[in-house]
């Protein structure tokens, strides 16, 4: 017999939910009568959409979304003594950093920005033989398959129950409080109850569903940030590529050396890259389109010799990250762009002669979709003014990187701004914390705070706060981060 979820639900209930019914018994298909039997045992069902569905588990903290922010939130809440369930739609944690092929992690450019969880991730990568430090920059060069394993390990050690292949569909909210989320599992709909919920969906799905105010896109154009459809290519002779780009073309964009090597070009940036001409030639010959030539970037992956992580294609902004139909079309369009770019590189870029697409991302790289309006709304001035907050949960100095709309200057060396806890919570829902790219920030400011280490630090703080609130019987949206003892906090403002 399998181990149960560590969150107690009655044993017989679990048997029922797990589908260990009488051998090959005919179930009358609908989840309804499946559940009728369970109800007789425990009475643990709820009605939803006219049907009785099981309560799958009752947790202290329910984290929706297992990306960089959600995985951090879940592990940190659990380490602080509460029972946590983490809901993930895919079969791996890490979100964009694993399923979206977004690596390495960008650099915060801020001194001492690593919160304990982020530092631990790097340490665990090292322990698995993946050195994340390239010797020059502060980018985190990770390996997606190793990171997926590390996330699983951390969840197991912390006692987080992970529910894979489970999608958050709806919530039950009344009186400004979420009491349950409705999820679709392989077995059908189910409810999960919790005291505190953390929305780490990236799309503010739970927050929107529960009635929190939100925004999307750039107020001036209505566009979201562009989506990317990232992929990996194998069979690359990286030494030959290095010799061509770094030595022959004398491109000095990449500061580090093999095995930490990247190539890039971005036509919309002020900076001029040597490979722009190379991509422009492809447009002239008709082998690639202007859209495909606009942005091309590739990074080696530590532990995967001859494989590079392709930070492209960038899909035109006419495709929207907040419209399901447009998103679907972006997938099809992006896949065509991907194959065109790959073919062009194979045909013309030294080192790529025998290369092939070895893996496509299993989610699009959404930089921005929906953002909540929380207790504090971060704006562009917070970046330029290097704002500090007593309730700060982390710091960053990554530049304003709104592809196609605005790219800011970097902050002066040593400069940074902080992110307040109040940007994670709202007046509307008392037991909800939002973590990741969808916190309360303007489009322009979000373009700076959206990178993975920052999202992980935000998640870490959300997990700590959720546990603290439950222990001290304080609503999540009334917690004053500054009053949590400094040694329990992942970050203390530099004021």
């Amino acid at each position, binding site marked *: 017999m399998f181990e149960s979820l560590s969150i107690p639900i009655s044993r017989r209930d679990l048997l029922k939910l797990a589908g260990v019914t009488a*051998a090959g018994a005919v179930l009358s298909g609908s989840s309804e009568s499946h559940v009728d039997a369970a109800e007789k045992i425990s009475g643990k069902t709820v009605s939803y959409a006219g049907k009785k569905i099981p309560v799958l588990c009752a947790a202290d903290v329910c984290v929706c979304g297992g990306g960089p922010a959600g995985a951090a939130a879940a592990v940190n809440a659990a380490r602080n003594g509460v029972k946590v369930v983490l809901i993930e739609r895919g079969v791996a944690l890490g979100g964009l950093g694993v399923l979206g092929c977004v690596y390495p992690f960008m650099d915060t450019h801020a001194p001492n920005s690593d919160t304990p969880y982020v530092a631990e991730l790097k340490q665990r990568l090292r322990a698995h033989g993946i050195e994340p430090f390239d010797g020059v920059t502060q980018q985190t060069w990770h390996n997606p*398959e190793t990171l997926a394993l590390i996330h699983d390990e951390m969840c197991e050690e912390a006692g987080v129950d992970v529910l894979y292949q489970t999608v958050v569909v709806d919530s039950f909210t009344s009186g400004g409080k979420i009491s349950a989320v409705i999820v679709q599992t392989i077995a059908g709909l189910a409810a999960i109850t919790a005291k505190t919920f953390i929305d780490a969906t990236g799309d503010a799905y739970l927050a929107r569903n529960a009635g929190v105010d939100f925004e999307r896109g750039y107020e001036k154009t209505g566009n979201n940030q562009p989506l990317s459809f990232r992929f990996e290519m194998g069979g690359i002779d990286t030494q030959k590529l290095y010799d061509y780009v770094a030595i022959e073309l004398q491109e000095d964009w990449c500061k580090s050396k093999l095995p930490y090597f990247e190539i890039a070009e971005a036509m919309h940036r002020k900076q001029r890259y040597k490979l722009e001409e190379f991509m422009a030639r492809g447009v002239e010959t008709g082998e690639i389109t202007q859209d495909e030539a606009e942005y091309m970037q590739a990074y080696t992956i530590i532990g*995967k010799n*001859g494989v590079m992580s392709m930070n492209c294609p960038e899909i035109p902004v006419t495709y929207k990250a907040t419209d399901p*139909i447009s998103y679907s079309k972006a997938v*099809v369009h992006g896949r065509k762009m991907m194959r065109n770019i790959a073919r062009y590189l194979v045909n013309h870029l030294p080192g790529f002669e025998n290369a092939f697409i070895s893996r496509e991302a299993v989610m699009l790289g959404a930089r921005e979709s929906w953002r909540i309006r929380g207790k504090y709304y971060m704006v562009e001035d917070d970046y330029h003014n290097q704002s500090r907050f007593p309730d700060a949960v982390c710091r960053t100095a990554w530049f304003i990187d709104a592809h196609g709309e605005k790219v800011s200057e970097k902050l002066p060396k040593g400069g940074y701004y902080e992110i307040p806890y109040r940007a994670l919570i709202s007046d509307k829902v008392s037991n909800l914390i939002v973590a990741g790219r969808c916190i309360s920030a303007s489009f322009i400011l979000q373009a700076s705070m959206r990178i993975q280490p920052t999202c992980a630090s935000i998640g870490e703080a959300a997990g700590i706060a959720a546990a603290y609130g439950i222990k001290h019987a304080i609503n999540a949206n009334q917690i004053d981060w500054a009053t949590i003892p400094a040694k329990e906090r992942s970050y203390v403002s530099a004021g």
Partner: protein
Amino acid sequence: MLEKFLIPISRRDLLKLAGLTAAGAVLSSKDSAQAAPVAPNQSFALNADKIPVLMNADVCVVGGGVAGTAAAVTAARNGAKVVLVEQGIVLGGSQTQALVYPAMPTKTFNSDTPYITDLNRRFYMHGIDVDFDSDPKYKNGGDARQYTPELLAAIYDEMCADYKVDILYNTTLVGSETSGGKITAAIVHSIEGLGKIVAKTFIDATGDATLSRFAGVECIRGSDVTGRNQKMSFRFEMGGVEEMKVYKFFVKKLKDDWCETKPPEFEFAKTTHTEKFYFEGIQRGEVTKDDVAYIQAFTIIGKPGTLSMNCPEMSPFVYSATSVVDRSKAIQQGRIMIRRLANFFRKNIPGFKNAFISREASMLGVRESWRIRGKYIMTKDDYFNAQKFPDAVCRSAYPIDIHDETLELNRTLGKGEFYEVPFRALVTNELANLLVVGRCISTDFPAQAAVRIQPTCMSMGEAAGIAAAYALKNAINVNAVDWTLIPAKERSYVSAG
């Protein structure tokens, strides 16, 4: 503004859709009258009337796997307006997401239906020849096809574009509406919120009979002997492999005769010749008995130095394919097993010295979960009798392949023998406008173990697409379609019976 889907959405629906997000509340399930906290049997009032219509189609196919893609493409090719709902961002399901490669062989001649021929032609146009029927080397016919996952993904998109199938990616089925013995709408979850897809005919290609279960169709799961589902696998790929060295190790050193071909087309497996090699690994503590319960690896055409690993297999005693908790735990355990296996290969097989895990599957390989009870239930006797049906939609001689030694029915068909799959196994008595395709059609447990392979699932999907379009044109219910009455030239398969 971006072009919308080809299928017209009514203006009102569009407005509703726009209103949905502007309001900030996705669903009106938050009546303040329904007070917190959750108590047993409390009602969550999902108000289905408030869910906007996302799409309106002739045929809605749920699930873009092997069978669903075939169904969608074929229905569209026959003139229906089709929407294909897929949870991920790639079509192909087990092929592209679970990394089940290559497609297992039907082991019989003339099993290729026109859709498969079209798919193979498209592969050929992209430089990969998968048509072995004419190759004298494959004397039994219907051999395994090497559909490179990433190329297959692009070809499926291309087919959908050619025949004007609207794909709705990143969208999950979460419910259905039924009325008068028909499904009227599928309720789906997208990044934006919940939406309805209204259609005249629905095709359940979820693999788990999810739509059928939502709509109230009777379902069965697992073996009626053991109660267990078939084993799941968590497949992965390894890159940086020197195939020739691997070949020499197995064929020359271990004297294994499992594989008849040489690199670049090569496979190895745990066989009687090689089991000692794995057993020693267990003794040294490098792998567990479960890790090496089943081992197989294939080279991949178009991905030199990369092997598709048909392992680890997850113990059916521990992990049920029909439990969400089990599937979650199988993923976590499977990932640890993948890591141990990769380290074991690296350490012990020349040619794996510099190898690495290049890709993990993005869905578990599920052989069997739920199966519907349809108008006809295929049984193991249909297999043993090499049964023919007037309303057959395809043929196969693939054996009953249960991956459970206690249940293996070792009798295989004689040379040249094959069985057929009847159309009636794809439809139900309960729902007039539902077709079910893929591994979850109406069969008993052993028969499912034979019909579950990719080419058979494709042919079923193709037939369902034809039947759906035919029923719409002739204004009959799909569950009342008599496949034998469809003109032979419009059918993808005509019984040999």
